[in-house]
């Protein structure tokens, strides 16, 4: 019914890309790895060598109380992952303006299981980061340089 195999997102509209991300944050390496594996664009490690620069302006985690128990304890958190990115060329001219992605997941919670829930929280943030990386690549593939 009109669906075509896409397979790899394959062709981003630039040959080489440099990723700049907040120091110490894993989204930079995640993006590099994914672009490297899934597209024909070459990830370079010097901004000067790149046709385009993907700037991760910020990537933050937030937590909101979603459900309470009858005793006023938290039974569910809403985890919110926000990442905002911008694409510029090697001269700093904007190819795609800053845009924000917001992802949310539910984390059922029990105070007595706080250590286990910490690991589950990490897994959900990782899942959102993977999701965000995929969506950022989709967005990159539609840029008209």
């Amino acid at each position, binding site marked *: 019914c009109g669906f*075509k*195999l*896409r397979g790899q997102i394959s062709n981003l509209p630039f040959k080489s890309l440099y990723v700049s991300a907040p120091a110490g944050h894993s989204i930079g390496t995640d993006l590099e790895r994914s672009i490297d594996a899934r597209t024909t664009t070459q990830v370079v490690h010097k901004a000067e060598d790149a046709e385009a620069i993907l700037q991760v302006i910020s990537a933050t985690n937030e937590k909101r109380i979603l459900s*309470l128990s009858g005793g006023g304890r938290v039974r*569910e958190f809403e985890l919110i992952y926000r990442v905002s990115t911008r694409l510029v060329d090697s001269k700093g001219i904007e190819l795609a303006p800053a845009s924000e992605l917001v992802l949310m997941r539910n984390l059922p919670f029990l105070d007595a299981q706080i250590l286990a829930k910490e690991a589950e929280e990490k897994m959900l943030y990782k899942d959102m980061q993977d999701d965000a990386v995929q969506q950022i690549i989709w967005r990159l593939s539609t840029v008209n340089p």
Partner: protein
Amino acid sequence: LTPITTPQKKPIFIDADRIHGYYKQEIEAVGDAKLRRGDQSISADRMKYFQDTEDTEAEGHVRLERAKDTLEGTDLQLNLETETGYLSQPNYYMRDGSGRGTGSILLFEGDDNYRLKQGSYTTCPVGNDDWYIRADDLEINNDEEVGTARNVSVLFKDVPILYLPWMSFSYNGKRKTGMLAPIFGNTARSGGDLALPFYWNIAPNIDATIAPRLMTKRGIMVNNELRYMGSSFMGQVLADVLPDDLDTNQTRYGISFMHSQYLGKGWSSNLNYNSVSDDLFFRDLANNLAQTSRTNLLQQGVVSYHGDLGVGGVLGFSAMVQRFQTLQDPRALIISPYKRLPQLSLTAIKRNVAGIDFDFNSSWTNFSHPTLVDGQRLTLFPNVSVPLRNAFGYLTPKIGLHYTRYNLSSSTELRGENTDRTIPILSLDSGVVFDRETALSGKTFIQTLEPRAFYVYVPFKDQSQLPNFDSAESDFSFAQMLTENRFSGSDRINDANQITLALTSRLLEPGTGIERLRIAIGQQFRFIDRDVTLNSPQVTSGRADFIAALSGRLTPEISADTNIQLDENELRTEKIRTGLSYQPELGKVVNLGYRFTRDVLEQVDASTQWPISGGLHGVVGVNYSLRDDKILAGLAGLEYSSCCWALRVVLQRLTTATQKTSTAFFVQLELNGLMEIGTNPLRVLQQNIPGYSSIH
């Protein structure tokens, strides 16, 4: 037009019906007189200008147009060089509309500074005197855009509502050292509540707020907050002290210290220390859910490293010490969590070594607990995957070996010896992506179709004798069903022989690639009965195996986020999360939510911010538990916004512990550009009404 140029002085232009004077002495201009010098101009019925001294005298309909303001009055004496003098019966208007006022006399004090005697100030537009301040002495510094007032009354609708001996305000919105507006409120547990915060702008990157707070039922508390920031670090210290609680006769305090620092070369550190004097500290003294619901206060320090391991490689290391202060609810006691003193973790990833990916996860932890079995645990989980890709999709076989070794404390009778566990974990992940162009209500979208299959095999290993330091069953979700272990933590590894099939379809905007809507379904087919279990209290339903979800925007105004989980064997609904938001414009939002987890919770949420008439908005938020048959949290309020002020009245009710509630009443009057009087309910509103936007 008479240009007069004097060396080193700005040229003066004078224009009037009649001009006469003496060369190099004085000029008199009568009838519609205008004087212009640089970016300043003076007009009046008549004026005199003295060339030698640059003194100006003007009378009748005097009007000064200057770079940042306009001044009007009856008589003016002004030296154009030193900018000193006076203006009688003055009216002043800031150029950008940020303020205006009057006085009995205006004294020019040079350097863009002036002072008003019996002055007034408001940010309301001309013709509207909804609020203003009256001060014996009002100093306006146009250079720094700040005002300082002495003997101040704040009048709202001509009624004095506040008196302050001294106040300082900034009409460009920058915060500056000085008294902030008082905060008052009322709570059932602490009585009337009045705080007088003092803001101290210590340096551009450090500030502090010190607020003595008087509570009629408890006494005087001091709230302190210090914030600081640098290029590679930031932090915050909160310290609240109530030296002698009139109700409990105890000293009560709460401390929070957060500091994060980037150490360079991939290393960073983080300290988060929280402590309070007693279990009831937040429930008695705080009025927001984020605080009253706190049970385990984190006390933790972490040093971590995130770096490269060559091309396609990542190396991560962290060292953490962590413990908690557990605040107990006497009617619902919980077992306090284990302390981790310390936990060392090392992860290494190396991609694409001859087409093979290598992962290594490991940790060593010393778990400590006052009453439960404690000891050290080492886990090693090396795994190898071979991602196979072609133009159609991917197939990733993965094999790993999970090794765990316990060294339990000898004081416990049953164990007291080393135990280890080795489990192989096999998985096969595969997926394909299709896409097509599709039209929906006249707009074209890219629609994707992404089937995925994930198979896991993990043999059964009896783990019932192992301690449980940090494991619990994870909630069933799309993220969880595509992982190998349904338990989080490392004390339990599930037995599995199952395949998960998932299908996701997304609508993407063609020009931007932005995801508008996502529909997904997934089902887990288990070929064995699961024997590894954990008998601990649950907040998740462990039986679900089918999941369907829809999230995104149905129309530009309506967004939905829905997720349903079923137990396919018994055709039973295990979990529902559904939310619907209608937001036609800013300040207009309706949210409805329903949440159900079998045997755990069933709740409905409803919240709205909606205009009633004119500048009046209503705000309502309710969280109702069908299981407990009561409102767990609720608020209702009104907001009125006019051009230069806003009033918010909010009543909030919270459940703080079993059979305990707290009611708080917030009133806030925001006078634009001057102050906010009362307790700011904005955070409470944002927490309770998703999509809430300040109407002011």
